[in-house]
Protein backbone atom coordinates (compact mmCIF):
# COMPACT_ATOMS: atom_id res chain seq x y z
CA UNK A 1 0.00 0.00 0.00
CA UNK A 2 2.51 2.63 1.18
CA UNK A 3 5.13 0.79 -0.88
CA UNK A 4 3.00 1.22 -4.01
CA UNK A 5 2.51 4.93 -3.21
CA UNK A 6 6.29 5.43 -2.96
CA UNK A 7 6.77 3.38 -6.14
CA UNK A 8 4.21 5.58 -7.96
CA UNK A 9 5.96 8.69 -6.65
CA UNK A 10 9.37 7.66 -8.00
CA UNK A 11 7.98 6.42 -11.32
CA UNK A 12 6.01 9.69 -11.64
CA UNK A 13 9.17 11.74 -11.04
CA UNK A 14 11.06 9.54 -13.51
CA UNK A 15 8.27 10.09 -16.05
CA UNK A 16 8.64 13.87 -15.56
CA UNK A 17 12.36 13.50 -16.26
CA UNK A 18 11.70 11.40 -19.38
CA UNK A 19 9.15 14.00 -20.48
CA UNK A 20 11.79 16.74 -20.27
CA UNK A 21 14.38 14.55 -22.00
CA UNK A 22 12.08 13.69 -24.93
CA UNK A 23 11.08 17.35 -25.38
CA UNK A 24 14.75 18.36 -25.40
CA UNK A 25 15.77 15.64 -27.89
CA UNK A 26 12.91 16.56 -30.25
CA UNK A 27 14.03 20.18 -30.07
CA UNK A 28 17.66 19.20 -30.80
CA UNK A 29 18.97 19.85 -27.28
CA UNK A 30 20.77 17.28 -25.08
CA UNK A 31 18.36 17.84 -22.21
CA UNK A 32 18.77 16.88 -18.55
CA UNK A 33 19.29 13.28 -17.37
CA UNK A 34 16.00 11.42 -16.91
CA UNK A 35 16.42 11.29 -13.12
CA UNK A 36 16.70 15.09 -13.00
CA UNK A 37 13.23 15.56 -11.47
CA UNK A 38 14.06 13.18 -8.62
CA UNK A 39 17.19 15.26 -7.91
CA UNK A 40 15.14 18.45 -8.31
CA UNK A 41 12.64 17.35 -5.68
CA UNK A 42 15.42 16.37 -3.28
CA UNK A 43 17.21 19.66 -3.95
CA UNK A 44 14.08 21.68 -3.19
CA UNK A 45 13.52 19.71 0.00
CA UNK A 46 16.99 20.67 1.29
CA UNK A 47 16.59 24.39 0.57
CA UNK A 48 16.01 27.03 3.19
CA UNK A 49 12.30 27.73 3.29
CA UNK A 50 9.91 30.31 4.65
CA UNK A 51 6.41 31.61 4.03
CA UNK A 52 6.15 35.00 2.28
CA UNK A 53 4.88 37.85 4.42
CA UNK A 54 2.05 38.56 1.98
CA UNK A 55 0.81 34.96 2.04
CA UNK A 56 -2.17 33.46 3.77
CA UNK A 57 -0.08 31.12 5.93
CA UNK A 58 -2.65 28.37 6.46
CA UNK A 59 -3.73 28.16 2.83
CA UNK A 60 -0.14 28.46 1.58
CA UNK A 61 0.87 25.29 3.45
CA UNK A 62 -2.47 23.47 3.29
CA UNK A 63 -2.63 23.39 -0.52
CA UNK A 64 0.66 21.50 -0.64
CA UNK A 65 -0.63 18.89 1.82
CA UNK A 66 -3.93 18.66 -0.08
CA UNK A 67 -2.09 18.23 -3.41
CA UNK A 68 -0.22 15.19 -2.07
CA UNK A 69 -3.26 13.83 -0.22
CA UNK A 70 -5.77 13.94 -3.08
CA UNK A 71 -3.50 12.22 -5.60
CA UNK A 72 -2.56 9.56 -3.04
CA UNK A 73 -6.30 8.99 -2.60
CA UNK A 74 -6.73 8.85 -6.39
CA UNK A 75 -4.05 6.16 -6.60
CA UNK A 76 -5.88 4.06 -4.00
CA UNK A 77 -9.15 4.49 -5.93
CA UNK A 78 -7.42 3.07 -9.02
CA UNK A 79 -5.89 0.19 -7.11
CA UNK A 80 -9.18 -0.76 -5.46
CA UNK A 81 -11.17 -0.54 -8.72
CA UNK A 82 -13.34 2.31 -7.36
CA UNK A 83 -15.55 4.73 -9.21
CA UNK A 84 -14.14 6.96 -11.95
CA UNK A 85 -16.63 9.55 -10.71
CA UNK A 86 -14.47 9.78 -7.56
CA UNK A 87 -11.46 10.25 -9.82
CA UNK A 88 -13.34 13.05 -11.54
CA UNK A 89 -14.08 14.57 -8.10
CA UNK A 90 -10.38 14.47 -7.21
CA UNK A 91 -9.56 16.13 -10.50
CA UNK A 92 -11.92 18.95 -9.48
CA UNK A 93 -10.24 19.18 -6.08
CA UNK A 94 -6.96 19.56 -7.94
CA UNK A 95 -8.47 22.67 -9.52
CA UNK A 96 -8.96 24.06 -6.00
CA UNK A 97 -5.29 23.31 -5.32
CA UNK A 98 -4.35 25.26 -8.44
CA UNK A 99 -6.48 28.23 -7.34
CA UNK A 100 -5.23 27.99 -3.77
CA UNK A 101 -1.58 27.90 -4.81
CA UNK A 102 -1.90 31.13 -6.74
CA UNK A 103 -4.19 33.01 -4.42
CA UNK A 104 -2.51 32.06 -1.12
CA UNK A 105 0.85 33.63 -1.90
CA UNK A 106 -0.21 37.24 -2.43
CA UNK A 107 2.13 37.43 -5.42
CA UNK A 108 0.72 39.07 -8.58
CA UNK A 109 2.26 36.28 -10.69
CA UNK A 110 0.62 33.67 -8.50
CA UNK A 111 -2.70 35.49 -8.78
CA UNK A 112 -2.39 35.60 -12.58
CA UNK A 113 -1.79 31.83 -12.50
CA UNK A 114 -4.86 31.36 -10.29
CA UNK A 115 -7.01 33.47 -12.62
CA UNK A 116 -5.78 31.47 -15.60
CA UNK A 117 -6.66 28.36 -13.67
CA UNK A 118 -10.26 29.66 -13.52
CA UNK A 119 -10.20 30.32 -17.26
CA UNK A 120 -8.85 26.84 -17.94
CA UNK A 121 -11.78 25.21 -16.14
CA UNK A 122 -12.65 24.02 -19.66
CA UNK A 123 -9.92 21.40 -19.21
CA UNK A 124 -12.37 19.50 -16.97
CA UNK A 125 -14.98 19.30 -19.73
CA UNK A 126 -13.24 16.57 -21.80
CA UNK A 127 -13.01 14.44 -18.64
CA UNK A 128 -16.72 14.89 -18.08
CA UNK A 129 -17.36 13.79 -21.67
CA UNK A 130 -15.10 10.76 -21.11
CA UNK A 131 -17.08 9.71 -18.03
CA UNK A 132 -20.37 10.09 -19.97
CA UNK A 133 -19.23 8.04 -22.95
CA UNK A 134 -17.70 5.28 -20.77
CA UNK A 135 -21.01 4.96 -18.92
CA UNK A 136 -22.82 4.75 -22.25
CA UNK A 137 -20.88 1.59 -23.13
CA UNK A 138 -20.34 -0.11 -19.77
CA UNK A 139 -23.44 1.04 -17.80
CA UNK A 140 -21.18 1.41 -14.79
CA UNK A 141 -18.63 3.90 -13.54
CA UNK A 142 -16.80 1.42 -11.31
CA UNK A 143 -13.30 0.73 -12.59
CA UNK A 144 -13.64 -2.94 -11.69
CA UNK A 145 -16.76 -3.16 -13.93
CA UNK A 146 -15.04 -1.25 -16.75
CA UNK A 147 -12.08 -3.67 -16.59
CA UNK A 148 -14.46 -6.67 -16.57
CA UNK A 149 -16.34 -5.19 -19.57
CA UNK A 150 -13.09 -4.93 -21.53
CA UNK A 151 -12.17 -8.55 -20.75
CA UNK A 152 -15.37 -9.58 -22.53
CA UNK A 153 -15.76 -6.94 -25.26
CA UNK A 154 -12.17 -5.84 -25.91
CA UNK A 155 -10.47 -2.52 -25.16
CA UNK A 156 -12.64 0.58 -24.93
CA UNK A 157 -9.88 2.35 -26.86
CA UNK A 158 -11.54 1.03 -30.02
CA UNK A 159 -15.21 1.18 -29.04
CA UNK A 160 -15.01 4.57 -27.30
CA UNK A 161 -12.15 6.12 -29.27
CA UNK A 162 -13.41 9.74 -28.96
CA UNK A 163 -13.49 9.34 -25.17
CA UNK A 164 -9.87 8.17 -25.29
CA UNK A 165 -8.97 11.31 -27.25
CA UNK A 166 -10.76 13.44 -24.65
CA UNK A 167 -8.89 11.81 -21.77
CA UNK A 168 -5.63 12.10 -23.70
CA UNK A 169 -6.34 15.83 -23.94
CA UNK A 170 -7.00 15.96 -20.20
CA UNK A 171 -3.61 14.37 -19.45
CA UNK A 172 -1.94 16.68 -21.96
CA UNK A 173 -3.56 19.71 -20.29
CA UNK A 174 -2.01 18.80 -16.94
CA UNK A 175 1.55 18.10 -18.13
CA UNK A 176 4.41 20.54 -17.69
CA UNK A 177 5.33 22.42 -20.92
CA UNK A 178 1.97 21.48 -22.46
CA UNK A 179 0.35 23.83 -25.02
CA UNK A 180 -2.46 24.09 -22.44
CA UNK A 181 -0.23 24.73 -19.38
CA UNK A 182 -1.18 28.40 -19.25
CA UNK A 183 -1.27 28.54 -15.46
CA UNK A 184 2.50 28.08 -15.21
CA UNK A 185 3.51 29.95 -18.34
CA UNK A 186 6.92 31.63 -18.27
CA UNK A 187 5.52 35.12 -19.01
CA UNK A 188 4.06 34.97 -15.49
CA UNK A 189 7.30 33.50 -14.04
CA UNK A 190 6.06 30.13 -12.72
CA UNK A 191 2.42 31.18 -12.52
CA UNK A 192 0.54 29.86 -9.53
CA UNK A 193 3.66 28.08 -8.21
CA UNK A 194 5.88 31.17 -8.29
CA UNK A 195 6.08 31.70 -4.51
CA UNK A 196 6.06 28.03 -3.54
CA UNK A 197 9.78 27.37 -3.30
CA UNK A 198 11.98 25.13 -1.13
CA UNK A 199 10.14 22.35 0.65
CA UNK A 200 6.74 23.63 -0.54
CA UNK A 201 7.85 23.10 -4.15
CA UNK A 202 9.28 19.68 -3.20
CA UNK A 203 5.86 18.78 -1.76
CA UNK A 204 4.15 19.96 -4.94
CA UNK A 205 6.55 17.92 -7.07
CA UNK A 206 5.64 14.87 -4.99
CA UNK A 207 1.91 15.51 -5.50
CA UNK A 208 2.29 16.20 -9.22
CA UNK A 209 4.43 13.09 -9.76
CA UNK A 210 1.71 10.92 -8.21
CA UNK A 211 -0.83 12.83 -10.35
CA UNK A 212 1.04 12.01 -13.58
CA UNK A 213 1.28 8.34 -12.59
CA UNK A 214 -2.43 8.23 -11.68
CA UNK A 215 -3.65 9.90 -14.89
CA UNK A 216 -1.52 7.67 -17.15
CA UNK A 217 -2.47 4.53 -15.23
CA UNK A 218 -6.15 5.54 -15.29
CA UNK A 219 -5.92 5.91 -19.08
CA UNK A 220 -4.50 2.37 -19.39
CA UNK A 221 -7.08 0.86 -17.03
CA UNK A 222 -10.07 2.64 -18.61
CA UNK A 223 -9.18 2.19 -22.27
CA UNK A 224 -6.97 -0.91 -22.44
CA UNK A 225 -7.83 -2.87 -19.29
CA UNK A 226 -5.93 -4.64 -16.54
CA UNK A 227 -2.38 -5.54 -17.59
CA UNK A 228 0.65 -6.94 -15.75
CA UNK A 229 2.49 -4.10 -14.01
CA UNK A 230 5.46 -4.10 -16.37
CA UNK A 231 3.24 -4.03 -19.48
CA UNK A 232 1.12 -1.24 -17.96
CA UNK A 233 4.27 0.79 -17.17
CA UNK A 234 5.54 0.31 -20.72
CA UNK A 235 2.23 1.45 -22.15
CA UNK A 236 2.15 4.46 -19.81
CA UNK A 237 5.65 5.32 -20.99
CA UNK A 238 4.58 5.13 -24.65
CA UNK A 239 1.60 7.41 -23.98
CA UNK A 240 3.87 9.82 -22.14
CA UNK A 241 6.41 9.91 -24.99
CA UNK A 242 3.63 10.69 -27.48
CA UNK A 243 2.46 13.51 -25.19
CA UNK A 244 6.05 14.79 -24.91
CA UNK A 245 6.25 14.96 -28.72
CA UNK A 246 3.14 17.13 -28.80
CA UNK A 247 4.57 19.38 -26.06
CA UNK A 248 7.89 19.64 -27.92
CA UNK A 249 6.42 20.78 -31.23
CA UNK A 250 3.47 22.88 -30.00
CA UNK A 251 3.79 26.43 -28.79
CA UNK A 252 1.85 27.37 -25.68
CA UNK A 253 -1.61 28.50 -26.67
CA UNK A 254 -3.12 31.73 -25.47
CA UNK A 255 -5.58 31.29 -22.55
CA UNK A 256 -8.64 31.78 -24.73
CA UNK A 257 -7.38 29.38 -27.41
CA UNK A 258 -6.95 26.62 -24.81
CA UNK A 259 -10.58 27.10 -23.75
CA UNK A 260 -11.70 27.03 -27.40
CA UNK A 261 -9.83 23.80 -28.21
CA UNK A 262 -10.99 22.01 -25.05
CA UNK A 263 -14.59 23.16 -25.53
CA UNK A 264 -14.58 22.09 -29.19
CA UNK A 265 -13.35 18.60 -28.29
CA UNK A 266 -16.02 18.31 -25.58
CA UNK A 267 -18.66 19.55 -28.03
CA UNK A 268 -17.58 16.97 -30.63
CA UNK A 269 -17.86 14.18 -28.05
CA UNK A 270 -21.26 15.46 -26.89
CA UNK A 271 -22.45 15.25 -30.52
CA UNK A 272 -20.97 11.72 -30.75
CA UNK A 273 -22.84 10.65 -27.58
CA UNK A 274 -26.09 12.14 -28.92
CA UNK A 275 -25.65 10.38 -32.28
CA UNK A 276 -24.89 7.04 -30.56
CA UNK A 277 -27.47 7.26 -27.80
CA UNK A 278 -30.37 9.06 -29.41
CA UNK A 279 -30.24 8.74 -33.18
CA UNK A 280 -28.71 5.24 -33.58
CA UNK A 281 -30.28 3.69 -30.43
Amino acid sequence: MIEYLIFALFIGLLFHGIHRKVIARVQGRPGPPIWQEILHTLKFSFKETWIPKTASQTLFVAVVLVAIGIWSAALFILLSGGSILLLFGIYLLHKIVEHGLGLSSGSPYGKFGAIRSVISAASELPLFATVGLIYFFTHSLMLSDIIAYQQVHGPLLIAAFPAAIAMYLVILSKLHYSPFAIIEAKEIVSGNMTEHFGIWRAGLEVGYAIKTYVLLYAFVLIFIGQLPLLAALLLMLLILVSLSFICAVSPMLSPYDTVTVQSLVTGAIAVYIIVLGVILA
Partner: protein
Amino acid sequence: MKRKQSALTIATVSGIVCVAAAIFAAIGYLAVWLAEILIVLAFPVFVIALALWWSASEGVADIPFIGY
Protein backbone atom coordinates in the same frame (compact mmCIF):
# COMPACT_ATOMS: atom_id res chain seq x y z
CA MET B 1 16.76 23.59 17.23
CA LYS B 2 13.38 23.15 18.90
CA ARG B 3 11.61 23.40 15.53
CA LYS B 4 13.98 20.84 14.03
CA GLN B 5 13.15 18.49 16.90
CA SER B 6 9.38 18.92 16.48
CA ALA B 7 9.65 18.39 12.69
CA LEU B 8 11.49 15.13 13.39
CA THR B 9 8.84 14.05 15.89
CA ILE B 10 5.98 14.78 13.44
CA ALA B 11 7.83 13.00 10.60
CA THR B 12 8.47 9.95 12.79
CA VAL B 13 4.89 9.72 14.06
CA SER B 14 3.33 10.19 10.60
CA GLY B 15 5.83 7.75 9.06
CA ILE B 16 4.97 5.14 11.70
CA VAL B 17 1.23 5.69 11.01
CA CYS B 18 1.80 5.08 7.26
CA VAL B 19 3.86 1.92 7.75
CA ALA B 20 1.69 0.55 10.57
CA ALA B 21 -1.52 1.13 8.57
CA ALA B 22 -0.06 -0.76 5.60
CA ILE B 23 1.17 -3.65 7.76
CA PHE B 24 -2.06 -3.97 9.77
CA ALA B 25 -4.12 -3.89 6.56
CA ALA B 26 -1.88 -6.56 5.00
CA ILE B 27 -2.29 -8.95 7.96
CA GLY B 28 -6.02 -8.24 8.22
CA TYR B 29 -6.11 -6.31 11.52
CA LEU B 30 -7.33 -3.15 9.82
CA ALA B 31 -9.87 -2.59 7.04
CA VAL B 32 -8.14 -1.66 3.79
CA TRP B 33 -10.25 1.49 3.31
CA LEU B 34 -9.36 2.65 6.83
CA ALA B 35 -5.66 2.03 6.19
CA GLU B 36 -5.91 4.00 2.94
CA ILE B 37 -7.55 6.94 4.71
CA LEU B 38 -4.83 6.90 7.38
CA ILE B 39 -2.11 6.88 4.71
CA VAL B 40 -3.81 9.65 2.70
CA LEU B 41 -3.86 11.81 5.86
CA ALA B 42 -0.41 10.89 7.19
CA PHE B 43 1.70 10.68 4.02
CA PRO B 44 1.54 14.42 3.08
CA VAL B 45 2.43 15.35 6.68
CA PHE B 46 5.34 12.88 6.58
CA VAL B 47 6.71 14.36 3.32
CA ILE B 48 6.58 17.97 4.52
CA ALA B 49 7.78 17.26 8.08
CA LEU B 50 10.69 15.17 6.77
CA ALA B 51 11.73 17.98 4.43
CA LEU B 52 11.32 20.56 7.23
CA TRP B 53 13.52 18.41 9.46
CA TRP B 54 16.42 17.96 7.10
CA SER B 55 16.28 21.53 5.73
CA ALA B 56 16.28 23.13 9.20
CA SER B 57 19.62 24.50 10.37
CA GLU B 58 21.54 22.69 13.11
CA GLY B 59 22.37 25.67 15.26
CA VAL B 60 22.95 29.40 15.19
CA ALA B 61 23.13 30.81 11.66
CA ASP B 62 26.32 32.38 10.30
CA ILE B 63 26.67 36.13 10.39
CA PRO B 64 25.68 37.19 6.84
CA PHE B 65 28.33 38.76 4.65
CA ILE B 66 27.67 42.50 4.65
CA GLY B 67 30.48 43.66 2.35
CA TYR B 68 33.89 45.20 2.98
